[in-house]
């Protein structure tokens, strides 16, 4: 019996969003009588940070404190249409729609403030703390709240904005099949260090090392959270999870939750992450998004590391001890491959 060390790597170019019919997102922004803003979306937040990032983008664009922005993603019946929170598209598509909507609302807000201050709206700036003042003359100012109230109760203006982000459907060249499915790609490279036991077929992941390029990290802690959690999910798909272990034969599948295997807190490996920020030209404040790609490179990297450790290629998932033992038997034992430092 021996435990064989292996190292594998994988790189990924990941398309942000999709282009099957345009892939639009919409946002509506309006000010309430207390000078706070509501952003209405149909893109929902399942914990990825859709609300937090939309809130940051709206506050930054409007020029108001983040505490004064509320993001409502409660109901797709009342929010404007959105394709949804999937395909790593949320930050990029929804964020761009929020910027368009917030810019329009900001324009009306500044017009209302200009009318109250009797100045030109083009001369006004926001301080991000709830005030609007004349550029270079901080004393000539009005609060966002007072401007909102003047608009709604005196001037008869709705401080609101509509935003949509749409990438037109790409045509396909009938000769070559060439098309432009997306406008932004995120990139990553991930290295897995693991060991394989040639007696039990057990795989123990010892370390993950990764570098992700995903535009500007609009909320660095949430990006890190996505990458840590996503890598765990990738590990789970690579080595543990399956409803049908002999697919396409449905036999011996797990019958309930008890028989659906996932790695627990004792099975995780240290993950050293580097985030490279290269702001995307068409991203909201340069953001693209980590989304799905945080799970994907783990799978090929694990398969490559297993090949590196014992010389067998497993090309179906998950890579269970049974598959490793059968492959080792067919090969006549482990054949560790060359390891490069």
């Amino acid at each position: 019996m021996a435990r064989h060390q292996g190292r594998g790597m994988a790189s990924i170019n990941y398309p942000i969003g999709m282009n099957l019919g345009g892939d639009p997102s919409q946002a509506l922004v309006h000010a309430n009588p207390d000078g706070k803003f509501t952003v209405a979306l149909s893109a929902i937040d399942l914990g990825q940070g859709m609300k937090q990032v939309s809130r940051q983008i709206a506050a930054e664009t409007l020029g108001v404190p983040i505490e004064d922005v509320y993001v409502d993603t409660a109901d797709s019946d009342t929010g404007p249409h959105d394709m949804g929170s999937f395909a790593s598209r949320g930050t990029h598509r929804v964020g761009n729609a929020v910027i368009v909507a917030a810019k329009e609302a900001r324009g009306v807000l500044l017009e209302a403030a200009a009318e109250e201050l009797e100045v030109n709206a083009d001369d006004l700036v926001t301080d991000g703390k709830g005030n609007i003042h004349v550029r270079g003359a901080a004393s000539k100012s009005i609060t966002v709240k007072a401007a909102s109230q003047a608009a709604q109760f005196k001037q008869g203006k709705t401080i609101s904005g509509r935003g949509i982000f749409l990438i037109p459907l790409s045509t396909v060249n009938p000769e070559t099949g060439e098309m432009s499915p997306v406008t932004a790609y995120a990139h990553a490279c991930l290295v897995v260090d693991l060991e394989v036991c040639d007696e039990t077929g057990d795989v123990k992941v010892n370390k993950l090392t990764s570098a992700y390029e995903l535009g500007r990290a609009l909320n660095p802690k949430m990006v890190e959270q996505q990458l840590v959690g996503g890598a765990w999910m990738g590990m789970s798909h690579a080595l543990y999870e399956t409803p049908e272990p002999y697919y396409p034969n449905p036999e011996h599948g797990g019958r309930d939750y008890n028989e659906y295997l996932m790695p627990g807190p004792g099975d995780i490996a240290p993950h050293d992450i580097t985030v490279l920020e290269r702001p995307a030209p068409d991203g909201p404040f340069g953001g693209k998004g980590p989304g799905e790609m945080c799970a994907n490179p783990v799978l090929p990297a694990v398969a490559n590391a297993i090949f590196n450790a014992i010389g067998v290629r497993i090309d179906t998932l998950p890579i269970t001890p049974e598959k490793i033992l059968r492959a080792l038997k067919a090969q006549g034992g482990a054949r560790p491959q060359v390891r490069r430092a």
Partner: protein
Amino acid sequence: MARMPVQFRLNGSDRAVFVEPAETLLGTIRRGLGDFAPKFGCGQGTCGVCTVLVDGEPRLGCLTLSVTCEGRSIETASGLADGPTLHPLQAAFMEHFAAQCGFCTPGMLMAAKALLDRNPNPTRVEVVEAIAGNVCRCTGYEPIINAILAAAQQRGVRRA
């Protein structure tokens, strides 16, 4: 079958309810008493989202019969915060981004509380063991483990 009376303390308040003999503690807490912090996940004791404390010990609400809780003290995540002041574990979970979708969080918090109440300075391995029965789909566990260790450290600092 006739419903049976049960009395226990829930997060410090005396409660009296009538339950079916086969009713689970999770069902009584959620449907009978309206405390929706403990969640229903697998319903077969595998995922841990229904974890509550019975006399300080972590128990799976979905596998515990309510009639066995007569006279006991039950704690759920709803009882952790003191008014607007978060429990150190809740604050640490927030600080360390230990929740994404949040469905496992009430169970994780109670499993962690049971650990820290009996072992204020746990090692990383002890933390892992304490939450080994709680499944999380989003975080990869690392932020949860870090949050529990940080909460333990914070409590230690406060006591010192």
